[in-house]
């Protein structure tokens, strides 16, 4: 049960139930779709990029608690950040969840995102918590393909 507590923490359950920045974004100038057909996680990430910064970021769609909470926390973390900062945070997050379980987590660097370190215990679920992030990154670099992490 201890690994489970680490994965399904209060903050993840809360963001799953009450996702932040959830819904369409009328001012969006870039949107990307993330879809994992095998498990059914399906979401859209909307960005309003203005003067090299993420003025607004929303997501919508359906998926498991891990994918939704990760998307919700991502939007909270990236709102107002510059494109360079957003890419840096993406790289740090991605490196954390794909690292070996023995690698210590730098909580100072990752902030609230550090709670997703628990997903390393569940290799099949890494794709869930990175889906929104890859969709966001794809929008940032303006890649036109639908994103999948399966």
């Amino acid at each position, binding site marked *: 049960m201890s690994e489970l507590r680490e994965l399904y923490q209060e903050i993840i359950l809360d963001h799953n139930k009450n996702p932040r920045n959830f819904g369409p974004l009328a001012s969006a100038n870039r949107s990307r779709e993330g879809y994992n057909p095998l*498990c*059914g*996680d399906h979401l859209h990430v909307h960005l309003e990029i203005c003067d090299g910064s993420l003025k607004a970021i929303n997501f919508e769609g359906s998926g498991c*608690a891990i994918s939704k909470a990760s998307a919700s926390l991502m939007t909270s973390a990236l709102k107002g950040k510059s494109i360079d900062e957003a890419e840096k945070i993406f790289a740090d997050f991605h490196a954390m969840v794909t690292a070996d379980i023995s690698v210590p987590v730098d909580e100072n660097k990752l902030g609230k995102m550090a709670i997703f370190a628990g997903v390393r215990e569940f290799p099949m*679920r890494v794709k869930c918590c990175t889906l929104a992030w890859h969709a966001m990154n794809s929008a940032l670099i303006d890649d036109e393909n639908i994103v999948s992490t399966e």
Partner: protein
Amino acid sequence: MVLNESILGSPIGGFDITEIQQDFPILNSKVNSKPLVYLDNASTTQKPSVVLDALDHHYTTENANIHRGVHHLSQKATISYEKARECVGRFLNTSESGEIVFVRGTTEAINLIAHSFGRQQIGEGDEIIISHMEHHSNIVPWQVLCREKKAVLRVIPINSTGELVFDDYVNLLNSNTKIVSVSHVSNVLGTINPIREITARAHDVGAVVVIDGAQGVPHLEVDVTSIDCDFYTFSGHKFFGPTGIGVLYGKKKLLEEMPPWETGGSMISKVSLEEGTTYASIPAKFEAGTPSIAGAIGLAAAIDYVENLGLDVIEQYERNLLKYGEQLLSEIPGLRIFGQAKEKVGVISFALESIHPHDVGTILDTEGIAIRAGHHCAQPLMDYYKVPAMARASIAFYNSYMEMESLALSIEKVRRVFN
């Protein structure tokens, strides 16, 4: 939770679940420090020691290629492989073992029929009927064939309890119907389809009937002669046998008239660079290359094991077990079971409130319980129920009443985590 005698019915003579579980070494293992409760049997089943021993025996005492060597080992391997074919033929009650073609699995069997029989027989405007509850392996080969031949794919609808709407099926049949291909048992809903009646009606209009038996054979006695279907397919690994081996049963006359699918060694009669090639007779015509020899031998061992337990006893036990599991789960608030057909076996697919099936699956896994979460290779069925995915507990005869209780208790735990 207490065992409810009224659900259990009378005890089943000679069916000792503790003893049966001892026959499957993997069932003694632990997952996340908890005893394994394996409820993903519709994906693949576990293997009894007798199957593992048969594989070991083959590789340690008679491993050789078949149908070609004059040496001792090759003759032994050939005899074992052909004995396995006879065993499968007897098991399905075919008129002769030549009607049994060994393939990789159900997927390959259906592709073989679509490529060989389908390409030969289907033309523009012809119609093929499948159902709304099919596995992707019984949808996509027909879609591809229809696109290639400008034929039309028709779909038998289902109702909310998860049964085929038989009147609608009858209305779909007409003189253009050439193939009807449906599952014996749904891998998601557990529905047992009325394949005898389906076959009889299809034959009335001259159509050929393919039955996807992947989920039928592990739970029900199958007699292809009595069903009168033209083709019946199943996978060894879903029937307590090894992966990589499956069965295509076809009526002799059809198999003989069909062109080969894969070509190469073993399936030829004579190869000449000047005069061309003539093909072997059935079943060799459809078994190009070296087949899964050990797989066939392992499958025969699985059949022997199951027949020894008794298919009628297994069927009765599983029906009671399913009933008990469904009763326990239906008492959980917010749990919805998909598929409530009057005739069903083997499967409880469910949704729990708005909790995603993958979260359910991950939490059950920490309790040592293996279920499947996802679209179960049946996306049209997910669309019908308007869900992206389902959680599915699927049973085999080695599952116990206690394991059903563990499942129910662990689902309660999932609810507690999320509330």
